[in-house]
């Protein structure tokens, strides 16, 4: 069947189609899994058990929740801007697939190995910001708009240290191609000799995906009801599914840039474990850390959040960049 597809479409296009199907499946399974994982991890931290009824240890809970959400009525209030209102939940997903195309799941499992892979990922993450703004604006509700504006300000503010820190890795690897970045970590993972960069990246990634402690737009943020207040049913679910997919992408990028991608850990290279398994293991450990952080800390107030970015993160990442640029120059 693969041969006929290649014959009809040509090898490149066939690869993209197969990769696209595989990635869409991955996104959906990942979301189902992450919803369950978050509920279980949060429950265990809080000394309770989480979902236990549906399926053994609640594995089928996410599927049942999805079915319930699909069955809900899609209410469109009269006063909304209809085109933008309908477009916003679809737009949040637009940035997900292109970002996943360039991620190296293993040595061969990469849909397209663009030589500007990193740039593509960060370019498409801007769609998230746009979609949130569309959602907040179309709802025709001043509190939704305030929530959306805060979210946009937060995303913009935390993108800067994110990119500055990623620049360190790019300076070392001398290329933006994702597979080259993984290859450059065959001797030692980037996290071991630039740990501060990894930490800053994880903090900014948490802020980019609107997760706690930076979740002012998402949680019952005191008075402002949030940008997704006017959404119900599946449209509301789309925003959250997009958030979990973004979490996966951000963790996957962290795993590739700092934690060696699909390479095995330093001393465990003798184990006959395929690269894909190591990759997913790293990604889910990072996601576990993000979930752990969410359930531990209280929320930052919005002005403290912005102060933290502009007054702490950006100076630290700038100094880090200068210092490591010097170190890299010396090493080469």
């Amino acid at each position, binding site marked *: 069947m693969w041969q006929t597809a290649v014959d009809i479409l040509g090898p490149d296009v066939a690869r993209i189609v197969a990769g696209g199907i595989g990635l869409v499946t991955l996104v959906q399974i990942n979301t189902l899994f992450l919803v369950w994982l978050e509920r279980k991890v949060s*429950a*265990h*931290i809080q*000394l309770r*058990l989480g979902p*236990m009824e549906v399926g053994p240890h609640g594995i089928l809970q996410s599927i049942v929740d999805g079915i319930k959400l699909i069955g809900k009525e899609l209410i469109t209030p009269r006063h909304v801007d209809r085109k933008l209102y309908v477009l916003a939940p679809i737009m949040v997903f637009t940035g997900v697939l292109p970002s996943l195309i360039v991620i190296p799941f293993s040595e061969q499992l990469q849909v397209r190995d663009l030589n500007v892979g990193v740039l593509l990922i960060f370019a498409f993450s801007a769609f998230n910001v746009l979609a949130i703004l569309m959602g907040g604006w179309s709802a025709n509700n001043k509190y939704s708009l305030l929530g959306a504006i805060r979210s946009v300000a937060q995303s913009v503010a935390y993108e800067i240290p994110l990119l500055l820190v990623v620049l360190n890795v790019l300076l070392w690897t001398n290329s933006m191609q994702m597979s080259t970045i993984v290859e450059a970590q065959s001797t030692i993972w980037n996290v071991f000799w630039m740990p501060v960069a990894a930490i800053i990246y994880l903090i900014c990634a948490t802020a980019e995906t609107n997760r706690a402690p930076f979740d002012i737009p998402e949680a019952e943020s005191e008075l402002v009801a949030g940008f997704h207040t006017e959404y119900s049913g599946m449209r509301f679910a789309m925003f959250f599914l997009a958030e979990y997919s973004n979490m996966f992408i951000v963790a996957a990028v962290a795993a590739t840039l700092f934690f060696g991608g699909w390479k095995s850990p330093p001393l465990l290279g003798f184990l006959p474990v395929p690269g894909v398994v190591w990759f997913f293991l790293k990604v889910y450990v990072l996601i576990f850390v993000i979930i*752990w*952080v969410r*359930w531990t800390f209280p929320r930052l107030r919005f002005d403290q959040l912005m102060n933290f970015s502009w007054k702490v993160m950006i100076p630290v990442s700038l100094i880090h960049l200068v210092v490591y640029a010097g170190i890299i120059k010396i090493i080469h």
Partner: protein
Amino acid sequence: MGMIRDVLVGSWSLITGMAVTIRRYGRRNVTTQYPRQRLEMSLSYRGHIEFKRFEDTGSHDCVACGTCVRFCPTNVIKVQGEKTQAHSKKRATLYFIDFSHCSLCGLCVANCPTKTLTFSQEYELAHECRWEGVVDLIRRIEATA
């Protein structure tokens, strides 16, 4: 330099906080998976009131005096009794309590002259109809004979 110290102290506080949460991760849960696991009520738990069964007579000893009716703050008790012989005590023939309005104060139990009222240990009292909250104590004690 003060700012650097603040950042370091702040980061350390965050890390120790995370250590606290993760330590709880492996502990056993403190919740009970009701209805698969049932809960045991303590002996002094206040369910709705019921008649105490005395050993000598094998039944209750309510004399329909009406003390519980007068003491109840929410007027949920209704008693009727009859006297079968001239020099004997009255005996209750009807005893209804509307438990949906009972405030579990215990005044009826405390002031009963024959000490025949006591709290039961029923806690699964959710009902679908308003009148299912009305408990007939005489039928209840006869049913558990």
